[in-house]
């Protein structure tokens, strides 16, 4: 019963306890680096918003184990992401993969910059030609108020 409760509580409050990877690191530092990067981008699907790197849930452990297996089999990052998406959907990845649907998300920063820049230029252009000699509100500070 006590075991039951402890295991159960691990399931429920997985947010409170971070996960420490007790598996042996890869001999190849490049593989290890890829592994670290991958697990930081995969979602622990039953947790309330955590990566499998940070989660203590057993699903997180199992997914990490699968990723290790796929890495040793020589799969590429893309293939590993495909593996996860096939089973869990795009929800499993914290970095939305580029597709027709997510294009808006990834282009948005640049679009907004363009639009914002254009708006700023228009406003400055408009104001450049307006009078600049107006009274200051009386205040003790200098031009750099």
């Amino acid at each position: 019963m006590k075991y039951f409760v402890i295991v159960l509580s691990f399931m429920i409050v997985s947010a409170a306890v971070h996960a420490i990877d007790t598996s042996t690191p890869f001999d190849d530092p490049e593989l290890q680096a890829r592994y670290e990067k991958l697990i930081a981008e995969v979602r622990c699907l039953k947790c309330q918003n955590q990566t499998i790197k940070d989660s203590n849930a057993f699903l997180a452990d199992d997914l990490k184990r699968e990723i290790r297996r796929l890495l040793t089999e020589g799969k590429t990052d893309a293939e590993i992401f495909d593996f996860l998406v096939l089973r869990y959907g795009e929800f499993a990845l914290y970095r939305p993969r580029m597709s027709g649907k997510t294009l808006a998300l990834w282009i948005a920063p640049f679009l907004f910059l363009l639009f914002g820049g254009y708006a700023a230029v228009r406003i400055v252009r408009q104001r450049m030609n307006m009078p600049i000699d107006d009274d200051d509100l009386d205040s003790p500070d200098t031009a750099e108020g």
Partner: protein
Amino acid sequence: MIPEVGHFALILALSLALCQGILPLIGAYKHDSALMAVARPAAYGQWVFVAISFACLTWSFLDSDFSVLYVANHSQLALPTIFKISAVWGAHEGSLLLWILILSSWTIAVSRYSHELPDIFSSRVIAVLGLLSCGFLLLTLLTSNPFERLIPAPPDGADLNPLLQDIGLAIHPPILYVGYVGFSVAFAFAIAAMLSGNLDRNWARWTRPWTTWAWLFLTVGIALGSWWAYYELGWGGWWFWDPVENASFMPWLAGTALIHSLAVTEKRGLFKSWTLLLAICAFSLSLLGTFLVRSGILISVHAFASDMTRGLFILGFLGIVIFSALILYAMRASAMDSQAGFKAVSRETFLLLNNVFLIIATALILGGTLAPLIFDVFNLGKISVGPPYFEFAFAIPMIPLVLLMGIGMHTVWRSQDLQPLLRRLRLPAALALLAGLAIPAIVYGRSGVLLTVGITAAVWVGVAALMPIYQSWRGPSGSPRLTRAMLGMSVAHLGVGLFVLGVSIVSAFTIETDVSLRPGERTEVAGYSFEFRELRNVDGPNYRAIEGEVEIRKDGEYVSTLRPQKRTYLVQKSPMTEAGIDVSWNRDLFVALGDPLGGESWSMRLQYKPMIRFIWLGAFVMAFGGLIAASDRRYRLYRKAAADETVQGETA
């Protein structure tokens, strides 16, 4: 009895809030000074009853009155007293009551310090705040009553979530709320201005200190949350772009834009419609944050237990408030802007760009946070948007902003000559480039593009911010005096530099290792040796813990002994880690216990986090800068003359 008193006090508070919200508005419309005069007394009265209600709830916790459902769900007899108090705001119902108390407190502050403002204006401001109070009081009374009874009362409660049993997390919500709720004041000022059809530079002068105070509290609140997550959650992270974290960050970004926009409106009477819209946005975003956290609409570690009724009510309230504000905006904003101009190189341009970049950042974070919801609603599937996206999206407008910040601080209003500006900036530019290239290579032995950009930007802003201070201190006796506003600005921007420095370095140079050790074994991370000495059992007031003792040495010299714990709380039975952290100005050493691996071995996470303290130091310095600026004498000095000016200019 006490809970019923508390409940009744809320009802009385609601009736006072209704008077406070409705009567002065009618009075302002009809120029009836008797009705307008209702505002302040009603506000003070409302505060008294809200305070009584809050006191009753606190008493119920201190008394461990488990016949109150909320107390039974979030407390227990063995809970330390300090956490019995913080449990009051530990969950949805109580935190709403805290929100109401803080809103009411801001309102009486405005009542107290607005005597110099024309009555028509101040009564409108207090009335708007009263209407907001009505909304929250109704929400509480109708859907989230903290005084609901549990009969028969259980002998002991369900305990406060162990995650919340920590001082840092106890004070984080109140401070955060002071910030969030403080933007209601800017909002109320904006509404009052739009109602009167008159928004002038005096209005901006009145609004600025209130907004700055709210902003600085929000800054501290967010920093505390981040710092708490770092030392409590045990994985060494300090920001996860979780929806609720974003919900607090977006009003901060909008609020920062608002402060800067107010500066332009005060000085030149420009950007009025921007300022109004930003005031509405900052407040709307803080209400939106409340909605996101309490409705269950997004997945988050921070979310309160969700309920569709509450969600609908909050959404409805949100909708009415924002819709009314935006209708007013659409009707009044276009008539407001002045005909003043400025040259292409001028302080105005830089502040305009500042606003543009901050608004872009806010929009991107909002988009990323809501994207999973939008995709789901339009049946485009379920996606996750996490740190990989947000870090990318946020950096895009932020890097140019930080670079421009250094220049903008040194520009003058209306028209800035290019040559003197460039000459002034030679020093920060040189130091920044030097630091960006040297620090990674010399101190840490590595390099990288993003890292160099980050350090360069940080030193650039920091030095540019320090220059006015240095010159005022050391400059010839004829140089302009540094007002508090200018000093505050420099300090706040210095804070930004410190923050960016911390983030850049810790992101690039963190070393994190998971090991398994037996007592007596030692391992090495980042030049420090960690020896796992022993394991012991420790008992706390409401938990049992296993504590490890880890001794750290560097080059044989003793550094510190850390005692990470693995706690099991007795009632909720949930395990919690308490990490052991050795703090220093330029690095943290972090040890967290994992699990027993059999044969006396334990797994542990050891981390080396260089310059991480600068992240929160930077935030606190920013807030301190805000404090200095908000206390500038001119906000008090010219009130009389300004108030007279405005009364003459009143149209509505």
